[in-house]
């Protein structure tokens, strides 16, 4: 059971930058959201890993992760709601095409 913390962090980094890359390149709103999920998860992993390795007795990282999950669930819910609404109006969810958000 000798897993160095660095392993978690590396995985987290890869996930994060995969998310970043996706965020940059995707034009579909859903795909963009997926990328955001990746980034959030990467952060969550880091929280959990650091909490475990650095301060095993404390719970902050743990709870941050917990709350992070809750927040991302909320974000996804709202994001998808908006997206569906947009789709209903313009039949499209390409980021570039949705420039007129004003009423």
């Amino acid at each position, binding site marked *: 059971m000798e897993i160095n913390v660095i392993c978690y962090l590396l995985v987290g980094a890869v996930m994060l930058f995969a998310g*970043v890359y996706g*965020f*940059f390149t995707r034009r579909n709103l859903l795909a963009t959201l997926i990328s955001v999920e990746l980034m959030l998860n990467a952060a969550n992993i880091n929280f959990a890993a650091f909490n475990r390795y650095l301060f095993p007795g404390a719970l902050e990282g743990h709870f941050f992760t917990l709350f992070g999950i809750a927040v991302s669930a909320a974000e996804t819910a709202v994001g998808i709601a908006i997206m569906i609404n947009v789709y209903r109006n313009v039949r499209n969810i390409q*980021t*570039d095409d949705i*420039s007129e958000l004003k009423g």
Partner: protein
Amino acid sequence: MEYTIWILLLPVLSFLLLALAGMKMSHRVSGLIGTVVLGAVAVLSYMAAFDYFSLPRQADGTYATLIPWNAEWLPFTGSLHIDMGVLLDPISVMMLVVITTVSFMVHIYSFGYMKGERGFQRYYAFLSLFTFSMLGLVVATNIFQMYVFWELVGVSSYLLIGFYYTKPEAIAASKKAFIVTRFADLGFLIGILIYGFYVGTFSFTPTETGLMQGAMMLPLALGLMFVGGAGKSAMFPLHIWLPDAMEGPTPVSALIHAATMVVAGVYQVARMFPLYIAYAPDTLHIVAYVGAFTAFYAASVACVQSDIKRVLAFSTISQIGFMMVALGVCTGAPSHEGGLGYMASMFHLFTHAMFKALLFLGAGCIIHAVHSNEMSTMGGLRKYMPVTHITFLIACLAISGIPPFSGFFSKDEILTACFAFSPVMGWIMTLIAGMTAFYMFRLYYGIFWGRENKELHAAHVPHESPLSMTFPLMVLAAITCVAGFIPFGHFVTGDGLSYDIHLDAGVATTSCVVAVVAIALATFMYARSEQPVADALARRFPKLHRAAYRRFYMDEAWLFVTKRIIFRCVSRPLAWFDRHVVDGFMNFLAWGANATGEEVQPMQSGRIQSYVMWFMAGIIVLTLMLLLCM
């Protein structure tokens, strides 16, 4: 003599009253207010003159210079400040009398002349304003006060010339008068500045040390001041405004452009006379030459004009030239006799004011009768207007220098002074005096004798003017008849000492003979209804006649300078430069900023992804920088 301040205050009060409330008054009330106030001022002036000259002379035989009232008005530095006050000395007292007399006469006269005119109240308000300014000018205690009132008379003259403001000629004339004199006043102002700075005071009587410091600059300062005087007094080549100023109502021409304001330049030179004599005799002689040339020029132009007011205007210019010459030929060497010209000039100023006002008022009556200024509409008027005829004749005789009328005496003194200066000058002035007699009688015959314009007179019979207009004529004619016998030399002389006027037999005879010959010539040429000689002369020298008629093209020359050079070569290019170069540069800057914005605008794409990308790149760069720095 503190009451003299009321001489200044009454007209200004009347002006304010008429200007602010005049429109609510009837013509009669407003005219009465103006006239009564002016009458009171005239009485005060006579009292002042009487009181002043009955004061005992000082130990050195001169009249004391009184300053009954003086207050600092605008301080500049410790020693330089504008004061407002009243200064009484022989010439200012003399001027008070002249101004108030003529002004009072003009006020009365205007009752008839301006009857029923629109803006009657305004007219009287302006007359009051003018009288106030002119009185302030002559009683000035210092050169700057003089300048202040100098400007004020300029403005009142502007307002009165432009009285008929719906007439384009009147507008142009008023504008021209103001701008030309203003241009000349620039010289006056700079002269004052030089004077004030080098002599250390604006007062007329600087301290000895001040004079020592300023002696070097005084000729220049006085010369520049004379430029101002030349503008006001219509000396060549700044005379062009005066003939045009005849567009104003005729009583105004009588008051401002014949009797009072136009002699302000003479008065100014007289006021600075002690300094001229002591420090700038050469400048004084320049004044004489300018005056002589102007006198000759104006006299020759007056010989061919057909508008009677223009003739009188050029005659005024010529006579003012006489006064300037008289001042200019003074020398300091024998201070008493050398100052004869000064006395002569002031004397002529006095008599000229009376008979020239008379001439103008008479001309006003004539214009009133025939409704035109042109000589061609007149002729033979002596039957219709006897009073005007007689008084006009008296004035013509006076200006021609026929004894015993006042002009003879004053002109004789001037000629004596000129002969004392140099015989050449004396003969030139005698010749001009002859020309004066000639053109005045040409005018006289043209109006009252000569070829009568019968159809016009049949259609509209000329009539004698009402008493309000003839009364001033008679008063002024009476003054003209007796003024020559005033012992003027007892009151006003160059060095202040009493001077007995004695006629130089030679000079008097010469000038009389010349005048009589000139009158005879004029009688021969113009008295009959046919004028073969005059027409023949005009045909013989068409170019000369035409040039003289067009006043030797001085107006065109000035028009060229102002319109072509200043307007077209300076102002327009400057305005263009401003709009296109200066403003263009600013607009170019704005355009440059705009263009740069257009260039970098694509970076603000509105795509959140690119923003995040830039953000990310920024973080990377920052982190790298941190790493490299640590």
